[in-house]
């Protein structure tokens, strides 16, 4: 027994075939996800995201149920005639009818939870690497600097898709079950591709933005402040200026730009987008592309400047 224990503790050489650097990015992403999952706050935000999903899930079911139940009769409730229109008016704004706007609206509202989650995730996933000097640990390994960025972006992408894309696909599946499923799934296959496209746009842009912001300011509180500026202050500013000066001012609202790109992926008509007076799709795409490009340039410069040997 003693001999066996000694044998276990002995330093042994390792012989095996090493994987390429992309595996390292995947490992980095997995470990980053694990780091985030250990935070209790994240589970609170996940719970909130789940509430938003369940709200849409049951509201969609309710609208279809009410429509089916009351399509042929008028019920009097406390003496007031109740029609389908009365009951579903509350949900009209959310367009819970299994169309492009249903999923666009879901992602729009789920975005609030996502934005808060990513603001907090940035400091844990990337800020700490700069703040605690972990970067030399990563960059001294047989990987390129972009593999590091890719690993971190993959981790953020996992959260984006778990919180946004997967539930949106779930709503699409539910919509099919509520209507004539054969017809719905066949006719609206492009919608699921649109949801995946919207998810991809969000994954790429938000992950680059989170990584770049976290590399810049590193700590959670400054990241949240920048996030607030980007997604709250600029939204209010853009909204005000769009109403009073030019609709193009909405382009300063990045979440709105992403929403427009998403609706383009979902195949929505430009004229049907609310609130009315939106910039063109291509303008939103241009802003999103410019933001991603700026993040990439910034990341290239900052990650390049890291000294691995002291």
């Amino acid at each position, binding site marked *: 027994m003693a001999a066996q224990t000694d044998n*276990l503790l002995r330093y042994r050489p390792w012989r095996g075939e090493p994987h390429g650097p992309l595996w*390292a990015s995947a490992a980095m992403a997995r*470990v980053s996800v694990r*780091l985030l999952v250990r935070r209790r706050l994240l589970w609170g935000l996940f719970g909130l995201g789940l509430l938003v999903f369940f709200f849409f899930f049951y509201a969609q079911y309710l609208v279809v149920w009410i429509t089916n139940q009351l399509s042929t009769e008028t019920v009097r409730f406390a003496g007031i005639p109740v029609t389908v229109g009365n009951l579903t008016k509350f949900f009209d704004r959310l367009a819970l009818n299994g169309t492009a706007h249903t999923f666009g609206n879901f992602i729009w509202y789920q975005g609030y939870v996502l934005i808060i989650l990513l603001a907090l995730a940035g400091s844990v996933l990337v800020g*700490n690497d700069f703040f605690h000097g*972990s970067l030399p640990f990563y*960059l001294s390994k*047989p*990987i390129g600097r972009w593999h590091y960025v890719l690993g971190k972006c993959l981790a953020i992408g996992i959260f984006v898709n778990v919180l946004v894309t997967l539930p949106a696909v779930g709503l699409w599946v539910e919509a099919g079950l509520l209507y004539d499923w054969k017809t719905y799934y066949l006719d609206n296959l492009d919608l699921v591709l649109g949801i995946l496209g919207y998810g991809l746009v969000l994954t790429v842009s938000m992950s680059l933005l989170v990584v770049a912001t976290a590399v810049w300011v590193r700590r959670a509180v400054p990241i949240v402040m920048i996030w607030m500026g980007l997604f709250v202050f600029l939204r209010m500013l853009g909204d005000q200026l769009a109403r009073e000066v030019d609709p193009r001012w909405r382009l300063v609202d990045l979440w709105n730009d992403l929403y427009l790109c998403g609706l383009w992926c979902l195949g929505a008509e430009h004229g049907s987008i609310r609130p009315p007076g939106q910039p063109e799709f291509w303008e939103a795409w241009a802003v999103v592309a410019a933001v991603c490009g700026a993040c990439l340039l910034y990341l290239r410069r900052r990650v390049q400047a890291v000294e*691995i040997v002291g």
Partner: protein
Amino acid sequence: MTPLTTHHSPLTNTLISLSKITRTFGAFTALQDVTLDLPPGRVGLLGPNGAGKSTLLKILMGLIPPSSGTGRVLDQELGGDRDASANWQLRRLIGFMPEADALVPGLTGVEYVSLAGELYGMPRREAQRRAHEVLSYLELEEARYRLVEEYSAGMKQRAKLAQALVHDPPVLFLDEPTSGLDPAGRDAMLRLVERLGTDHGKSVILSTHLLADVEAVCERVVIMAGGRVRGQGTVAELRDPRQHRFRIRVQGDGVSFRSELAKCEVKVLADNGHGEWRVAVPPGWVNLDFFRLAETQNAVIRSLVPDDETLEELFLRTVGA
């Protein structure tokens, strides 16, 4: 002793071979005409701040290319951008222990070392198994499941060594491995490094300011200053033999013995006040003369050893040259 073999690289007689390596940053020359030929073994890289040690390590790890000159580490050619795949290959052969903290907060010791293994390209399961083995070997077995940020300074240094060792590299680059350690921790770390060389055939490049660390662990030294190599070889080769100098410890009537030595043209260079002197003898002096003289002056010689140059003296002489 385990031979120096890994899956990465065939046996080779040369660890590092550099020929006229120069590296400039704009108008500043960090390294100039560095030529080195080092066999596998434990090598100390010594030099004051700004000597070019860090730049040399970066070039050896393929993090920056040399501006001119050629070189090889084991069988890998140096050169190219840090993101070139040849340099990834080179870094697979090297385990690097940075001077910076370089820990990932939130991970346990075993997760940290296992992640390092995966970053080196090891499959996940093997990286995990290996992380346990290496941590046990480095006496961190009991702390494996604790968060790395909760480790003591000595444990952090060992965790950093473990992440450098996880993929079983033939070469270890250790940047100030004893930095921030208490004397006991320092001794333990140096013993570990030495054992890796003697028991497991690892080559070690030890970059440090601490001459005692190099003296304790390394077979060879490379002394750098002003971006140039000022000396390289074994410590014994580089030391001035100083056959005319001795350390002598005397008991008894030291005063009269010392005055007799002076009459015989033996100069006392230093006296520590506790009966130990460093002396320089004239040509033709033999050791027996010390004992003859001591006998006549009622003094007893407790020890007599050649006063060879210390590594500190060697370093100062070489850097000052």
